[in-house]
């Protein structure tokens, strides 16, 4: 697992992907930080974090698109799948590498906290709450992106698929006002990433939301392992 993790991380930083992702993330995050906090003399970072939700949705597919599709295309999966390692550690190694690069991106928000601290002591508990929310959101989206990447050998399809799923998860919230059935309404708001994430941005660390994002990770990593399993049998 660590061999794959290290190789994957290296590959992010020898290709432009990691640099582009980090640069764009830093630029957009800083723009919103400047606009919503610094310019309006506010220590409230919740606006920044709710914008970062959308930014993550769009940038994460770029991190995950080549994760497994490239191996399939260049047949390097033959080396990985015939090596004496389990499928789970193969998938986890790749997954954690993407998560690590994502972490480098969102770590900028902690710098925002430090900048605010130069003016007035910020509420660190709230900032960390936000940060954990963003991390969990990313972990869930990366798991979904990894899964999509395992389905195809085409990076573009993997990226577009990732965007589509991210977009759907963002918009599904809007359906609640259209749907009549209260059961369906509660199901939709239950799977809505937006409403789950909102509670983090208002500073509430809800145990149910944490469990929700972690379950999404587990389910999609499991699905990805099953995809590999199935590919052998078909």
């Amino acid at each position, binding site marked *: 697992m*660590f*061999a*794959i993790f*290290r*190789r994957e991380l*290296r*590959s992010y930083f*020898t*290709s432009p992907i990691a640099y582009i992702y980090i640069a764009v993330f830093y630029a957009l995050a800083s723009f919103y930080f400047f606009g919503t906090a610094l310019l309006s003399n506010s220590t409230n970072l919740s606006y920044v974090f709710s914008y970062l939700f959308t930014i993550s949705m769009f940038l994460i597919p770029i991190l995950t698109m080549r994760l497994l599709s490239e191996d399939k295309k*260049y*047949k*390097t*999966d*033959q*080396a*990985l*799948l*015939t*090596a*004496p*390692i*389990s499928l789970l550690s193969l998938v986890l190694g790749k997954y954690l590498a993407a998560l690590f690069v994502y972490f480098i991106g969102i770590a900028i928000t902690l710098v925002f906290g430090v900048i605010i601290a130069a003016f007035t002591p910020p509420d660190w508990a709230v900032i960390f709450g936000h940060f954990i929310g963003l991390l969990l959101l990313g972990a869930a989206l990366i798991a979904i992106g990894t899964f999509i990447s395992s389905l195809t050998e085409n990076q573009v399809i993997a990226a577009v698929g990732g965007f589509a799923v991210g977009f759907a998860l963002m918009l599904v919230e809007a359906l609640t006002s259209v749907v009549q059935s209260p059961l369906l309404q509660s199901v939709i708001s239950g799977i809505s990433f937006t409403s789950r994430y909102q509670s983090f941005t208002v500073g509430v660390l809800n145990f149910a939301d944490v469990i929700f994002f972690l379950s999404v990770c587990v389910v999609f990593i499991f699905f990805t392992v099953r995809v590999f399993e199935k590919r*052998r*049998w078909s």
Partner: protein
Amino acid sequence: MLEVKNLTKAYGEKRAVDDITFTVNRGEILGFLGPNGAGKSTTMNIITGYLSSSEGTVTVDGHDILGDPIKAKAKIGYLPEHPPLYLDMTVREYLDFMFDLKKCKLPKKAHIAEICELVKITDVYQRIIKNLSKGYRQRVGLAQALLGNPDLLILDEPTVGLDPKQIIEIRGLIKKLGEKHTVILSSHILPEVQAVCERVIVINKGKLVADDTPDNLSHAMSTDHKLTVRVDGPEDGVYQLLRGLPSMVEVQKLGVREGSAYEYSLEAEPEADVRREMFKRLADRGWPILALRSSELSLEDIFLSLTSDDKPGIALQDEAGQEELSKSAHELADSLDGDAGAEENGGEA
């Protein structure tokens, strides 16, 4: 060392591998011969655990590849048809990674250096794999398979795309490796298998059609009864004499070769050896033999003879069977032609 039992891989209706059974003993070099699309790569992918079989079992040194995959895979070094190289890495980084991936226990630096020396890639050690030639890539793939000194080496067409000098080098290397490892080597080139292997398995259309030593195989398909002879003497006189030999089936004039020497192709009855009798009679007449050689069998001839040996009754009596036979020979020839034209097509799904 390796036990393959009733291996079958079905893709829908099509059976890529059909009920193949064989065992490989420790220290053997086994050749896997067959035309493209015969199921060689599929079989190898199943043995290494990349694909699963539809039916049947693969056991590596007592470990089932599905039941106990991690232990079984640790014993195998695999060079697939397309070497699984990360093109953006240098040779050094790649071998480091594969070393860690395979969880080798040996001293890392010394072991990698030793293998690079063995496959002669030391001088490209720091270069990015993307920039290496096909021959070097193949060797890096081979180096990767050798990491950790696995007991069983599985090499899928290791000499495809190499130049003749490299082919000879790689063959020599495989022979050398065979002293310490058990090796399975696939190829569609008969002389290659003959040069390297102690035992040959021939598969065609997913079915195992022969399992023997190369010597026995070539004996079974003995070419002694098909000869080409060059005799210095009057064309018709020699022709009549050759026709008069006992158990001669057919004589064909091939035309003049050097001065007054003519060449003839002879076909005697199988099992008959006409060479001694022919020499005596020609010597009596004072017509010297300038050259005598067995007509070379091509791979497709061997396949033909193997498939017809399989079902002699059908081949001789049943017209439909014969048609099928000639059709399969045709396909074989096509695939061989295609091979010569485009080595890269190699898609054995």
